[in-house]
Protein backbone atom coordinates (compact mmCIF):
# COMPACT_ATOMS: atom_id res chain seq x y z
CA UNK A 1 0.00 0.00 0.00
CA UNK A 2 1.50 3.29 -0.98
CA UNK A 3 1.03 6.14 1.45
CA UNK A 4 0.10 8.84 -1.01
CA UNK A 5 -3.37 7.50 -1.73
CA UNK A 6 -6.08 8.49 0.69
CA UNK A 7 -8.49 6.08 -0.97
CA UNK A 8 -7.55 3.07 -2.99
CA UNK A 9 -9.79 0.30 -4.25
CA UNK A 10 -8.86 -2.93 -5.96
CA UNK A 11 -11.38 -4.84 -7.99
CA UNK A 12 -14.16 -3.45 -5.82
CA UNK A 13 -17.40 -5.14 -6.81
CA UNK A 14 -20.97 -5.05 -5.53
CA UNK A 15 -23.74 -7.33 -6.69
CA UNK A 16 -27.38 -7.21 -5.68
CA UNK A 17 -29.11 -10.52 -6.39
CA UNK A 18 -26.68 -11.30 -9.17
CA UNK A 19 -26.90 -7.85 -10.75
CA UNK A 20 -23.51 -6.17 -10.75
CA UNK A 21 -23.83 -2.49 -9.91
CA UNK A 22 -20.16 -1.79 -9.16
CA UNK A 23 -17.87 -3.76 -11.41
CA UNK A 24 -14.22 -4.37 -10.50
CA UNK A 25 -13.56 -0.76 -9.73
CA UNK A 26 -10.00 0.46 -9.26
CA UNK A 27 -10.23 3.90 -7.78
CA UNK A 28 -7.31 6.01 -6.63
CA UNK A 29 -7.69 9.26 -4.75
CA UNK A 30 -4.48 11.03 -3.82
CA UNK A 31 -3.88 12.68 -0.48
CA UNK A 32 -5.06 16.27 -0.30
CA UNK A 33 -6.88 16.46 -3.58
CA UNK A 34 -10.48 17.04 -4.55
CA UNK A 35 -11.74 14.09 -6.52
CA UNK A 36 -14.98 14.25 -8.48
CA UNK A 37 -17.00 11.07 -8.89
CA UNK A 38 -19.33 11.47 -11.84
CA UNK A 39 -21.74 9.34 -13.78
CA UNK A 40 -25.37 9.07 -14.79
CA UNK A 41 -28.10 8.03 -12.34
CA UNK A 42 -27.68 4.48 -11.20
CA UNK A 43 -24.03 4.32 -12.24
CA UNK A 44 -23.02 3.05 -8.81
CA UNK A 45 -21.56 6.17 -7.21
CA UNK A 46 -23.48 5.95 -3.96
CA UNK A 47 -22.90 2.19 -3.75
CA UNK A 48 -19.14 2.75 -4.13
CA UNK A 49 -19.21 5.37 -1.39
CA UNK A 50 -21.14 3.04 0.94
CA UNK A 51 -18.48 0.40 0.48
CA UNK A 52 -15.76 2.93 1.28
CA UNK A 53 -17.53 3.66 4.56
CA UNK A 54 -18.23 0.08 5.50
CA UNK A 55 -21.97 0.78 5.37
CA UNK A 56 -22.32 -2.10 2.94
CA UNK A 57 -20.03 -5.03 2.28
CA UNK A 58 -18.28 -5.47 -1.07
CA UNK A 59 -19.14 -8.69 -2.89
CA UNK A 60 -15.58 -8.86 -4.12
CA UNK A 61 -12.39 -6.82 -4.03
CA UNK A 62 -11.05 -4.52 -1.34
CA UNK A 63 -11.10 -0.87 -0.44
CA UNK A 64 -8.57 1.04 1.62
CA UNK A 65 -9.15 4.37 3.28
CA UNK A 66 -5.95 5.87 4.69
CA UNK A 67 -4.56 2.34 4.75
CA UNK A 68 -7.50 0.81 6.67
CA UNK A 69 -10.00 -1.71 5.40
CA UNK A 70 -13.55 -0.38 5.92
CA UNK A 71 -15.06 -3.85 6.33
CA UNK A 72 -12.55 -5.18 8.81
CA UNK A 73 -11.47 -1.98 10.57
CA UNK A 74 -14.62 0.16 10.43
CA UNK A 75 -13.86 2.16 13.56
CA UNK A 76 -10.44 3.33 12.36
CA UNK A 77 -11.91 4.31 9.00
CA UNK A 78 -14.84 6.13 10.50
CA UNK A 79 -12.60 8.05 12.83
CA UNK A 80 -10.92 9.58 9.77
CA UNK A 81 -13.73 9.89 7.27
CA UNK A 82 -16.62 12.33 7.23
CA UNK A 83 -19.65 11.36 5.16
CA UNK A 84 -22.51 13.46 3.88
CA UNK A 85 -25.25 11.10 2.68
CA UNK A 86 -27.35 11.73 -0.41
CA UNK A 87 -30.34 12.45 1.74
CA UNK A 88 -29.18 13.89 5.02
CA UNK A 89 -31.39 13.41 8.07
CA UNK A 90 -31.31 14.88 11.56
CA UNK A 91 -33.17 14.31 14.78
CA UNK A 92 -35.97 16.72 14.07
CA UNK A 93 -36.95 17.23 17.68
CA UNK A 94 -33.47 18.48 18.57
CA UNK A 95 -31.84 21.79 17.69
CA UNK A 96 -28.91 22.11 15.30
CA UNK A 97 -26.48 22.48 18.17
CA UNK A 98 -27.86 19.42 19.97
CA UNK A 99 -27.56 17.37 16.80
CA UNK A 100 -23.98 18.47 16.26
CA UNK A 101 -23.13 17.88 19.92
CA UNK A 102 -24.39 14.34 19.72
CA UNK A 103 -22.15 13.58 16.74
CA UNK A 104 -19.21 15.26 18.47
CA UNK A 105 -19.80 13.06 21.52
CA UNK A 106 -19.89 9.94 19.37
CA UNK A 107 -16.51 11.02 18.02
CA UNK A 108 -15.11 11.39 21.49
CA UNK A 109 -14.48 15.12 21.21
CA UNK A 110 -13.41 16.40 24.63
CA UNK A 111 -16.39 17.70 26.56
CA UNK A 112 -14.98 21.19 27.07
CA UNK A 113 -14.24 21.57 23.40
CA UNK A 114 -17.60 20.55 21.97
CA UNK A 115 -19.30 23.92 22.30
CA UNK A 116 -16.45 25.75 20.63
CA UNK A 117 -16.29 23.24 17.77
CA UNK A 118 -20.02 23.46 17.18
CA UNK A 119 -19.84 27.25 16.84
CA UNK A 120 -16.84 26.93 14.57
CA UNK A 121 -18.47 24.57 12.07
CA UNK A 122 -21.76 26.46 12.09
CA UNK A 123 -19.82 29.52 11.04
CA UNK A 124 -17.85 27.60 8.42
CA UNK A 125 -21.05 26.57 6.62
CA UNK A 126 -22.62 29.99 7.03
CA UNK A 127 -25.49 29.07 9.32
CA UNK A 128 -25.96 32.37 11.05
CA UNK A 129 -27.18 32.87 14.57
CA UNK A 130 -30.39 34.35 13.14
CA UNK A 131 -31.11 31.14 11.25
CA UNK A 132 -30.38 28.91 14.23
CA UNK A 133 -32.64 30.88 16.57
CA UNK A 134 -36.39 30.65 16.88
CA UNK A 135 -38.28 33.64 15.57
CA UNK A 136 -39.53 34.40 19.06
CA UNK A 137 -39.57 37.62 21.00
CA UNK A 138 -36.13 38.95 21.86
CA UNK A 139 -36.77 38.36 25.53
CA UNK A 140 -36.96 34.58 25.37
CA UNK A 141 -34.47 33.48 22.74
CA UNK A 142 -34.63 29.80 21.94
CA UNK A 143 -32.98 27.68 19.30
CA UNK A 144 -35.03 26.23 16.50
CA UNK A 145 -35.45 22.47 16.25
CA UNK A 146 -34.16 21.01 13.00
CA UNK A 147 -37.70 20.02 12.08
CA UNK A 148 -38.29 23.68 11.30
CA UNK A 149 -35.27 24.01 9.01
CA UNK A 150 -35.54 24.46 5.27
CA UNK A 151 -34.06 21.88 2.92
CA UNK A 152 -31.00 23.97 2.19
CA UNK A 153 -30.42 24.80 5.83
CA UNK A 154 -30.44 21.09 6.63
CA UNK A 155 -27.97 20.52 3.83
CA UNK A 156 -25.62 23.09 5.33
CA UNK A 157 -26.05 21.56 8.74
CA UNK A 158 -25.06 18.28 7.08
CA UNK A 159 -21.77 19.82 5.95
CA UNK A 160 -21.20 21.18 9.46
CA UNK A 161 -21.89 17.71 10.77
CA UNK A 162 -19.20 16.27 8.49
CA UNK A 163 -16.61 18.86 9.51
CA UNK A 164 -17.12 18.66 13.27
CA UNK A 165 -14.95 15.55 13.60
CA UNK A 166 -12.07 17.23 11.72
CA UNK A 167 -11.87 14.43 9.17
CA UNK A 168 -8.83 13.45 7.07
CA UNK A 169 -11.10 12.42 4.23
CA UNK A 170 -14.48 13.91 3.38
CA UNK A 171 -16.98 12.09 1.18
CA UNK A 172 -19.82 14.26 -0.07
CA UNK A 173 -22.68 12.66 -1.99
CA UNK A 174 -24.33 15.42 -4.03
CA UNK A 175 -23.56 18.14 -1.49
CA UNK A 176 -24.90 21.10 -3.44
CA UNK A 177 -28.42 19.80 -3.94
CA UNK A 178 -30.95 22.12 -2.38
CA UNK A 179 -28.54 24.99 -1.85
CA UNK A 180 -29.15 28.48 -3.19
CA UNK A 181 -26.55 30.00 -5.60
CA UNK A 182 -24.83 31.87 -2.81
CA UNK A 183 -24.76 28.75 -0.69
CA UNK A 184 -23.30 26.76 -3.57
CA UNK A 185 -20.52 29.30 -4.01
CA UNK A 186 -19.72 29.28 -0.31
CA UNK A 187 -19.67 25.50 -0.25
CA UNK A 188 -17.44 25.27 -3.31
CA UNK A 189 -15.03 27.77 -1.74
CA UNK A 190 -15.05 25.74 1.43
CA UNK A 191 -14.37 22.51 -0.48
CA UNK A 192 -11.53 24.17 -2.37
CA UNK A 193 -9.94 25.19 0.94
CA UNK A 194 -10.07 21.73 2.48
CA UNK A 195 -7.00 20.22 0.78
CA UNK A 196 -4.95 23.11 2.15
CA UNK A 197 -6.04 22.03 5.62
CA UNK A 198 -4.89 18.48 5.00
CA UNK A 199 -8.24 17.03 4.03
CA UNK A 200 -8.93 14.92 0.98
CA UNK A 201 -12.33 15.36 -0.64
CA UNK A 202 -14.38 12.95 -2.71
CA UNK A 203 -17.33 14.63 -4.31
CA UNK A 204 -20.17 12.99 -6.17
CA UNK A 205 -22.23 15.37 -8.22
CA UNK A 206 -24.20 15.90 -11.40
CA UNK A 207 -23.35 19.62 -11.54
CA UNK A 208 -20.46 19.46 -13.97
CA UNK A 209 -19.45 23.08 -13.81
CA UNK A 210 -19.26 22.89 -10.02
CA UNK A 211 -17.12 19.80 -10.22
CA UNK A 212 -14.88 21.46 -12.75
CA UNK A 213 -14.46 24.45 -10.48
CA UNK A 214 -13.11 22.58 -7.48
CA UNK A 215 -11.92 19.15 -8.55
CA UNK A 216 -8.35 18.33 -9.40
CA UNK A 217 -9.10 14.88 -10.70
CA UNK A 218 -12.28 13.18 -11.79
CA UNK A 219 -13.54 9.71 -12.49
CA UNK A 220 -16.60 8.97 -14.55
CA UNK A 221 -18.54 5.84 -13.72
CA UNK A 222 -20.90 4.14 -16.06
CA UNK A 223 -22.73 0.91 -15.22
CA UNK A 224 -20.36 0.35 -12.32
CA UNK A 225 -17.20 0.67 -14.39
CA UNK A 226 -14.70 3.52 -14.39
CA UNK A 227 -14.77 4.76 -17.96
CA UNK A 228 -12.63 7.89 -17.66
CA UNK A 229 -10.20 8.88 -14.94
CA UNK A 230 -7.67 11.70 -14.74
CA UNK A 231 -7.30 15.46 -14.52
CA UNK A 232 -9.82 17.59 -16.34
CA UNK A 233 -7.27 19.31 -18.60
CA UNK A 234 -5.66 16.14 -19.68
CA UNK A 235 -8.95 14.34 -20.19
CA UNK A 236 -10.24 17.22 -22.27
CA UNK A 237 -7.25 17.20 -24.53
CA UNK A 238 -7.43 13.44 -24.90
CA UNK A 239 -11.06 13.50 -25.73
CA UNK A 240 -11.19 16.55 -27.99
CA UNK A 241 -7.78 17.03 -29.57
CA UNK A 242 -5.93 13.78 -29.40
CA UNK A 243 -3.87 14.79 -26.40
CA UNK A 244 -2.61 18.11 -27.83
CA UNK A 245 -2.96 21.74 -26.87
CA UNK A 246 -4.72 23.96 -29.32
CA UNK A 247 -3.65 27.62 -29.31
CA UNK A 248 -5.40 30.34 -31.24
CA UNK A 249 -3.58 33.58 -32.18
CA UNK A 250 -5.36 36.60 -33.61
CA UNK A 251 -3.23 39.02 -35.61
CA UNK A 252 -3.49 41.05 -38.85
CA UNK A 253 -2.92 39.48 -42.25
CA UNK A 254 -0.58 36.65 -41.34
CA UNK A 255 1.84 35.64 -44.10
CA UNK A 256 3.88 32.60 -45.05
CA UNK A 257 6.97 33.90 -43.22
CA UNK A 258 5.08 34.12 -39.93
CA UNK A 259 3.69 30.63 -40.33
CA UNK A 260 7.16 29.28 -41.13
CA UNK A 261 8.65 30.95 -38.06
CA UNK A 262 5.92 29.59 -35.79
CA UNK A 263 6.36 26.14 -37.23
CA UNK A 264 10.05 26.14 -36.35
CA UNK A 265 9.28 26.53 -32.66
CA UNK A 266 10.05 23.25 -30.94
CA UNK A 267 6.92 21.35 -30.04
CA UNK A 268 4.62 22.96 -32.60
CA UNK A 269 2.80 20.60 -34.87
CA UNK A 270 0.22 21.66 -37.36
CA UNK A 271 -0.48 25.37 -38.10
CA UNK A 272 -3.59 26.48 -39.94
CA UNK A 273 -4.72 29.92 -41.05
CA UNK A 274 -8.29 31.15 -40.92
CA UNK A 275 -8.53 34.79 -42.06
CA UNK A 276 -6.73 36.72 -39.34
CA UNK A 277 -6.29 33.78 -37.00
CA UNK A 278 -3.64 31.13 -36.64
CA UNK A 279 -4.74 27.79 -35.19
CA UNK A 280 -1.70 26.12 -33.74
CA UNK A 281 -1.55 22.61 -32.37
CA UNK A 282 1.22 21.94 -29.87
CA UNK A 283 2.52 19.29 -27.49
CA UNK A 284 2.85 21.60 -24.52
CA UNK A 285 1.64 25.02 -23.50
CA UNK A 286 3.78 27.20 -25.83
CA UNK A 287 1.92 30.48 -25.49
CA UNK A 288 5.00 32.40 -24.31
CA UNK A 289 7.21 31.23 -27.18
CA UNK A 290 4.54 31.81 -29.82
CA UNK A 291 3.66 35.29 -28.66
CA UNK A 292 7.33 36.26 -28.60
CA UNK A 293 7.81 35.00 -32.16
CA UNK A 294 4.75 36.88 -33.44
CA UNK A 295 5.84 40.15 -31.88
CA UNK A 296 9.42 39.74 -33.07
CA UNK A 297 8.12 39.35 -36.65
CA UNK A 298 6.39 42.74 -36.18
CA UNK A 299 2.88 41.36 -36.28
CA UNK A 300 0.36 42.79 -33.87
CA UNK A 301 -0.78 40.33 -31.23
CA UNK A 302 -4.44 41.18 -30.84
CA UNK A 303 -5.59 38.15 -28.89
CA UNK A 304 -4.35 34.75 -27.89
CA UNK A 305 -6.38 31.87 -26.53
CA UNK A 306 -5.61 28.39 -25.40
CA UNK A 307 -8.53 26.10 -25.91
CA UNK A 308 -10.10 25.08 -22.65
CA UNK A 309 -12.12 21.97 -22.26
CA UNK A 310 -15.25 21.98 -20.28
CA UNK A 311 -16.25 18.93 -18.35
CA UNK A 312 -19.51 19.11 -20.26
CA UNK A 313 -17.64 18.38 -23.48
CA UNK A 314 -15.84 15.42 -22.01
CA UNK A 315 -18.93 14.00 -20.38
CA UNK A 316 -21.18 14.47 -23.37
CA UNK A 317 -18.62 13.19 -25.83
CA UNK A 318 -18.21 9.99 -23.86
CA UNK A 319 -21.89 9.31 -23.42
CA UNK A 320 -22.72 10.20 -27.03
CA UNK A 321 -20.21 7.68 -28.30
CA UNK A 322 -21.61 4.95 -26.09
Amino acid at each position, binding site marked *: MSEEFAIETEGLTKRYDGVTVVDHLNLHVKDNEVFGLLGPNGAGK*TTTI*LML*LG*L*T*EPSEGTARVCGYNPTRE*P*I*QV*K*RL*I*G*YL*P*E*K*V*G*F*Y*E*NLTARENLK*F*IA*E*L*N*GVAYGEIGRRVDEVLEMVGLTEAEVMENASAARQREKTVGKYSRGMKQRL*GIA*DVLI*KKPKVVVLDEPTSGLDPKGINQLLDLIAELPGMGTTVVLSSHQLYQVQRVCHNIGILSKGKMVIEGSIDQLGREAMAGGRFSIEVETVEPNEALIKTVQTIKGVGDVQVEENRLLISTDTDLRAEISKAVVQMDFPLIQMKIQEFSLDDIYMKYFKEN
Partner: protein
Amino acid sequence: MTAILRKELADYFTSIRFIILFAMMLGVSAVGLWAASQGIRNTNLPEGFIFLGLFTTPGIPLFGSLPVLIALIVPLIGIALGFDAINSERTGGTLSRVLSQPIYRDSVINGKFLAGIVTLSIMVGTMILLISGYGLRMIGVPPTAEEIIRLFMYLVLTIIYGAFWMALAILFSVVLRRIASSLLISLGIWLFFSIFILLVAQAIANAFIPTVDATQAELVRNGELAQMITRTSPIVLYQEATRGLLTPVVVGSLGMLTMSQVAYMIPNPLSLGQSILLIWPHLTSLISLSLICFAASYVVFMRQEIRAT
Protein backbone atom coordinates in the same frame (compact mmCIF):
# COMPACT_ATOMS: atom_id res chain seq x y z
CA MET B 1 -22.59 4.05 23.94
CA THR B 2 -23.33 6.26 26.93
CA ALA B 3 -23.95 9.12 24.50
CA ILE B 4 -26.52 7.00 22.65
CA LEU B 5 -28.10 5.80 25.88
CA ARG B 6 -28.37 9.34 27.16
CA LYS B 7 -29.91 10.58 23.92
CA GLU B 8 -32.39 7.72 23.74
CA LEU B 9 -33.49 8.25 27.32
CA ALA B 10 -33.92 11.96 26.75
CA ASP B 11 -35.95 11.10 23.65
CA TYR B 12 -38.22 8.73 25.52
CA PHE B 13 -38.88 11.03 28.41
CA THR B 14 -39.72 14.02 26.27
CA SER B 15 -41.85 12.14 23.75
CA ILE B 16 -45.59 12.28 23.59
CA ARG B 17 -45.54 8.50 23.36
CA PHE B 18 -44.10 8.27 26.86
CA ILE B 19 -46.75 10.56 28.27
CA ILE B 20 -49.52 8.55 26.63
CA LEU B 21 -48.11 5.26 27.88
CA PHE B 22 -47.71 6.66 31.34
CA ALA B 23 -51.28 7.91 31.36
CA MET B 24 -52.49 4.53 30.12
CA MET B 25 -50.55 2.83 32.88
CA LEU B 26 -52.01 5.12 35.52
CA GLY B 27 -55.46 4.39 34.18
CA VAL B 28 -54.88 0.65 34.39
CA SER B 29 -53.59 0.95 37.95
CA ALA B 30 -56.62 2.98 38.96
CA VAL B 31 -59.08 0.56 37.38
CA GLY B 32 -57.26 -2.44 38.85
CA LEU B 33 -57.13 -0.89 42.28
CA TRP B 34 -60.79 -0.04 42.17
CA ALA B 35 -61.66 -3.56 41.06
CA ALA B 36 -59.55 -4.96 43.89
CA SER B 37 -61.23 -2.71 46.42
CA GLN B 38 -64.58 -4.05 45.29
CA GLY B 39 -63.53 -7.66 45.50
CA ILE B 40 -61.13 -7.83 48.41
CA ARG B 41 -63.81 -7.65 51.10
CA ASN B 42 -65.59 -10.73 49.88
CA THR B 43 -62.49 -12.81 49.49
CA ASN B 44 -61.25 -15.04 52.20
CA LEU B 45 -57.54 -14.37 52.24
CA PRO B 46 -55.18 -16.57 54.26
CA GLU B 47 -53.06 -15.12 57.01
CA GLY B 48 -49.88 -13.46 55.67
CA PHE B 49 -51.13 -12.90 52.12
CA ILE B 50 -53.63 -10.17 52.71
CA PHE B 51 -51.60 -7.47 51.04
CA LEU B 52 -51.02 -9.59 47.94
CA GLY B 53 -54.77 -9.86 47.77
CA LEU B 54 -54.67 -6.41 46.25
CA PHE B 55 -53.06 -7.88 43.17
CA THR B 56 -54.98 -11.09 43.03
CA THR B 57 -58.62 -10.65 43.96
CA PRO B 58 -60.60 -11.52 40.89
CA GLY B 59 -62.27 -8.14 41.21
CA ILE B 60 -65.35 -7.58 39.16
CA PRO B 61 -66.12 -9.20 35.85
CA LEU B 62 -65.42 -7.18 32.72
CA PHE B 63 -62.38 -5.50 34.21
CA GLY B 64 -60.58 -8.55 35.48
CA SER B 65 -57.98 -8.54 38.16
CA LEU B 66 -54.93 -6.35 38.25
CA PRO B 67 -52.39 -8.94 37.04
CA VAL B 68 -54.54 -9.67 34.02
CA LEU B 69 -54.68 -5.99 33.15
CA ILE B 70 -50.95 -5.66 33.65
CA ALA B 71 -50.29 -8.75 31.54
CA LEU B 72 -52.31 -7.01 28.85
CA ILE B 73 -50.74 -3.57 28.97
CA VAL B 74 -47.06 -4.40 29.52
CA PRO B 75 -46.64 -5.98 26.06
CA LEU B 76 -48.18 -2.85 24.60
CA ILE B 77 -45.67 -0.70 26.44
CA GLY B 78 -42.82 -2.94 25.28
CA ILE B 79 -44.01 -2.83 21.68
CA ALA B 80 -44.57 0.92 21.81
CA LEU B 81 -41.00 1.42 23.02
CA GLY B 82 -39.41 -0.74 20.34
CA PHE B 83 -41.43 -1.01 17.13
CA ASP B 84 -39.72 1.92 15.37
CA ALA B 85 -36.34 1.83 17.10
CA ILE B 86 -34.25 1.24 13.99
CA ASN B 87 -36.50 1.77 10.99
CA SER B 88 -37.52 5.28 12.03
CA GLU B 89 -33.85 6.23 12.07
CA ARG B 90 -33.43 4.54 8.73
CA THR B 91 -36.26 6.43 7.05
CA GLY B 92 -35.27 9.63 8.83
CA GLY B 93 -31.77 9.35 7.38
CA THR B 94 -30.15 9.63 10.80
CA LEU B 95 -28.94 6.04 10.80
CA SER B 96 -26.50 6.75 7.95
CA ARG B 97 -25.10 9.67 9.84
CA VAL B 98 -24.78 7.91 13.18
CA LEU B 99 -23.25 4.75 11.71
CA SER B 100 -20.62 6.73 9.83
CA GLN B 101 -19.26 7.81 13.19
CA PRO B 102 -16.58 5.75 14.96
CA ILE B 103 -18.92 3.58 17.02
CA TYR B 104 -19.69 -0.11 16.82
CA ARG B 105 -23.01 -0.93 15.27
CA ASP B 106 -24.10 -2.99 18.23
CA SER B 107 -23.83 0.01 20.52
CA VAL B 108 -26.77 1.53 18.63
CA ILE B 109 -28.96 -1.49 19.38
CA ASN B 110 -27.57 -1.89 22.90
CA GLY B 111 -28.18 1.78 23.67
CA LYS B 112 -31.75 1.62 22.45
CA PHE B 113 -32.45 -1.64 24.25
CA LEU B 114 -30.99 -0.41 27.53
CA ALA B 115 -32.83 2.90 27.34
CA GLY B 116 -36.02 0.94 26.67
CA ILE B 117 -35.47 -1.28 29.69
CA VAL B 118 -34.79 1.72 31.91
CA THR B 119 -37.98 3.38 30.70
CA LEU B 120 -39.94 0.17 31.10
CA SER B 121 -38.59 -0.39 34.61
CA ILE B 122 -39.53 3.11 35.62
CA MET B 123 -43.06 2.63 34.31
CA VAL B 124 -43.66 -0.80 35.82
CA GLY B 125 -41.93 0.21 39.06
CA THR B 126 -44.05 3.32 39.40
CA MET B 127 -47.15 1.33 38.69
CA ILE B 128 -46.49 -1.29 41.36
CA LEU B 129 -45.38 1.30 43.91
CA LEU B 130 -48.48 3.39 43.25
CA ILE B 131 -50.79 0.44 43.63
CA SER B 132 -49.03 -0.69 46.80
CA GLY B 133 -49.13 2.78 48.28
CA TYR B 134 -52.80 3.37 47.62
CA GLY B 135 -53.60 -0.19 48.53
CA LEU B 136 -51.92 0.24 51.86
CA ARG B 137 -54.07 3.25 52.60
CA MET B 138 -57.13 1.42 51.43
CA ILE B 139 -56.86 -1.85 53.32
CA GLY B 140 -54.67 -0.68 56.15
CA VAL B 141 -52.75 -3.95 56.38
CA PRO B 142 -49.01 -3.53 55.79
CA PRO B 143 -47.28 -6.13 53.63
CA THR B 144 -45.22 -8.82 55.31
CA ALA B 145 -41.56 -9.25 54.44
CA GLU B 146 -42.38 -12.24 52.29
CA GLU B 147 -45.03 -10.29 50.43
CA ILE B 148 -42.51 -7.56 49.71
CA ILE B 149 -40.09 -10.10 48.28
CA ARG B 150 -42.85 -11.64 46.21
CA LEU B 151 -43.89 -8.23 44.89
CA PHE B 152 -40.30 -7.40 44.04
CA MET B 153 -39.97 -10.65 42.12
CA TYR B 154 -43.22 -9.87 40.38
CA LEU B 155 -41.71 -6.54 39.37
CA VAL B 156 -38.61 -8.24 37.94
CA LEU B 157 -40.75 -10.81 36.15
CA THR B 158 -42.90 -8.08 34.64
CA ILE B 159 -39.87 -6.14 33.44
CA ILE B 160 -38.46 -9.25 31.80
CA TYR B 161 -41.83 -9.86 30.21
CA GLY B 162 -41.92 -6.30 28.86
CA ALA B 163 -38.32 -6.61 27.70
CA PHE B 164 -39.27 -9.64 25.64
CA TRP B 165 -41.96 -7.70 23.79
CA MET B 166 -39.60 -4.80 23.28
CA ALA B 167 -36.89 -7.10 21.92
CA LEU B 168 -39.44 -8.63 19.56
CA ALA B 169 -40.56 -5.20 18.35
CA ILE B 170 -36.94 -4.06 17.90
CA LEU B 171 -36.24 -7.19 15.87
CA PHE B 172 -39.06 -6.27 13.49
CA SER B 173 -37.88 -2.68 13.35
CA VAL B 174 -34.51 -3.98 12.15
CA VAL B 175 -35.88 -6.45 9.63
CA LEU B 176 -38.74 -4.40 8.19
CA ARG B 177 -38.15 -1.07 6.48
CA ARG B 178 -41.60 0.33 7.09
CA ILE B 179 -42.66 1.50 10.51
CA ALA B 180 -46.28 0.53 9.92
CA SER B 181 -45.29 -3.05 9.09
CA SER B 182 -43.19 -3.56 12.19
CA LEU B 183 -45.95 -2.15 14.37
CA LEU B 184 -48.64 -4.30 12.79
CA ILE B 185 -46.65 -7.52 12.95
CA SER B 186 -45.70 -6.96 16.60
CA LEU B 187 -49.32 -6.27 17.50
CA GLY B 188 -50.44 -9.25 15.45
CA ILE B 189 -48.14 -11.57 17.37
CA TRP B 190 -49.33 -10.11 20.63
CA LEU B 191 -52.94 -10.69 19.64
CA PHE B 192 -52.23 -14.22 18.49
CA PHE B 193 -50.50 -15.21 21.71
CA SER B 194 -53.04 -13.57 23.95
CA ILE B 195 -56.23 -14.88 22.37
CA PHE B 196 -55.88 -17.20 19.43
CA ILE B 197 -53.33 -19.48 21.02
CA LEU B 198 -56.01 -20.72 23.43
CA LEU B 199 -58.34 -21.65 20.58
CA VAL B 200 -55.56 -23.15 18.52
CA ALA B 201 -54.26 -25.17 21.46
CA GLN B 202 -57.71 -26.56 22.23
CA ALA B 203 -58.30 -27.40 18.58
CA ILE B 204 -55.01 -29.28 18.29
CA ALA B 205 -55.57 -31.10 21.55
CA ASN B 206 -59.06 -32.15 20.45
CA ALA B 207 -57.72 -33.36 17.13
CA PHE B 208 -55.25 -35.69 18.84
CA ILE B 209 -57.33 -36.72 21.83
CA PRO B 210 -61.04 -36.43 21.05
CA THR B 211 -63.16 -35.40 24.00
CA VAL B 212 -66.33 -37.11 22.81
CA ASP B 213 -66.97 -40.24 24.83
CA ALA B 214 -63.59 -39.78 26.45
CA THR B 215 -62.62 -41.40 29.70
CA GLN B 216 -61.50 -39.37 32.65
CA ALA B 217 -57.84 -40.14 31.88
CA GLU B 218 -58.24 -39.06 28.26
CA LEU B 219 -59.81 -35.80 29.32
CA VAL B 220 -56.85 -35.12 31.56
CA ARG B 221 -54.40 -35.89 28.78
CA ASN B 222 -56.37 -33.63 26.43
CA GLY B 223 -56.13 -30.80 28.93
CA GLU B 224 -52.44 -31.38 29.49
CA LEU B 225 -51.69 -31.29 25.77
CA ALA B 226 -53.64 -28.06 25.35
CA GLN B 227 -51.78 -26.55 28.25
CA MET B 228 -48.43 -27.59 26.83
CA ILE B 229 -49.24 -25.86 23.57
CA THR B 230 -50.43 -22.68 25.24
CA ARG B 231 -47.16 -22.58 27.14
CA THR B 232 -45.42 -21.64 23.89
CA SER B 233 -47.10 -18.29 24.44
CA PRO B 234 -44.99 -15.86 26.47
CA ILE B 235 -48.25 -14.39 27.76
CA VAL B 236 -49.35 -17.72 29.21
CA LEU B 237 -45.87 -18.26 30.66
CA TYR B 238 -46.04 -14.88 32.31
CA GLN B 239 -49.54 -15.40 33.68
CA GLU B 240 -48.65 -18.77 35.14
CA ALA B 241 -45.53 -17.38 36.74
CA THR B 242 -47.55 -14.48 38.14
CA ARG B 243 -50.00 -16.87 39.66
CA GLY B 244 -47.19 -18.88 41.17
CA LEU B 245 -45.75 -15.77 42.73
CA LEU B 246 -48.81 -13.90 43.84
CA THR B 247 -51.45 -16.57 44.46
CA PRO B 248 -49.43 -19.22 46.23
CA VAL B 249 -52.53 -20.51 47.96
CA VAL B 250 -54.69 -21.70 45.15
CA VAL B 251 -52.05 -22.73 42.69
CA GLY B 252 -50.25 -25.56 44.40
CA SER B 253 -49.38 -27.01 41.05
CA LEU B 254 -49.55 -25.37 37.67
CA GLY B 255 -50.62 -28.62 36.05
CA MET B 256 -54.04 -29.94 35.32
CA LEU B 257 -56.39 -30.78 38.10
CA THR B 258 -59.73 -32.43 37.71
CA MET B 259 -62.69 -31.14 39.60
CA SER B 260 -62.53 -34.05 42.00
CA GLN B 261 -58.88 -33.37 42.71
CA VAL B 262 -59.59 -29.70 43.35
CA ALA B 263 -62.11 -30.71 45.92
CA TYR B 264 -59.46 -32.57 47.84
CA MET B 265 -56.91 -29.77 47.68
CA ILE B 266 -55.89 -28.37 51.02
CA PRO B 267 -55.41 -24.60 50.90
CA ASN B 268 -51.81 -24.85 51.89
CA PRO B 269 -49.67 -21.83 50.97
CA LEU B 270 -46.49 -22.52 49.06
CA SER B 271 -43.32 -21.36 50.71
CA LEU B 272 -41.36 -18.65 48.94
CA GLY B 273 -38.70 -21.14 47.91
CA GLN B 274 -41.28 -23.49 46.44
CA SER B 275 -42.87 -20.62 44.54
CA ILE B 276 -39.55 -19.64 43.05
CA LEU B 277 -38.83 -23.22 42.11
CA LEU B 278 -42.23 -23.41 40.49
CA ILE B 279 -41.78 -20.33 38.31
CA TRP B 280 -38.09 -20.84 37.58
CA PRO B 281 -38.64 -22.56 34.20
CA HIS B 282 -41.08 -19.82 33.21
CA LEU B 283 -38.60 -17.14 34.12
CA THR B 284 -35.75 -18.73 32.21
CA SER B 285 -37.97 -19.33 29.18
CA LEU B 286 -38.95 -15.67 29.09
CA ILE B 287 -35.34 -14.58 29.45
CA SER B 288 -34.15 -16.88 26.70
CA LEU B 289 -36.97 -15.75 24.40
CA SER B 290 -35.87 -12.14 24.91
CA LEU B 291 -32.26 -13.08 24.30
CA ILE B 292 -33.15 -14.90 21.09
CA CYS B 293 -34.98 -11.82 19.75
CA PHE B 294 -32.14 -9.58 20.81
CA ALA B 295 -29.49 -11.79 19.25
CA ALA B 296 -31.46 -12.08 16.02
CA SER B 297 -31.80 -8.31 15.64
CA TYR B 298 -28.12 -8.02 16.39
CA VAL B 299 -27.11 -10.53 13.71
CA VAL B 300 -29.38 -9.01 11.07
CA PHE B 301 -28.35 -5.46 11.88
CA MET B 302 -24.60 -6.10 11.84
CA ARG B 303 -24.56 -7.02 8.16
CA GLN B 304 -27.33 -4.78 6.91
CA GLU B 305 -26.75 -2.17 4.24
CA ILE B 306 -27.32 1.35 5.52
CA ARG B 307 -28.42 3.49 2.60
CA ALA B 308 -29.97 6.90 2.91
CA THR B 309 -32.79 7.08 0.41
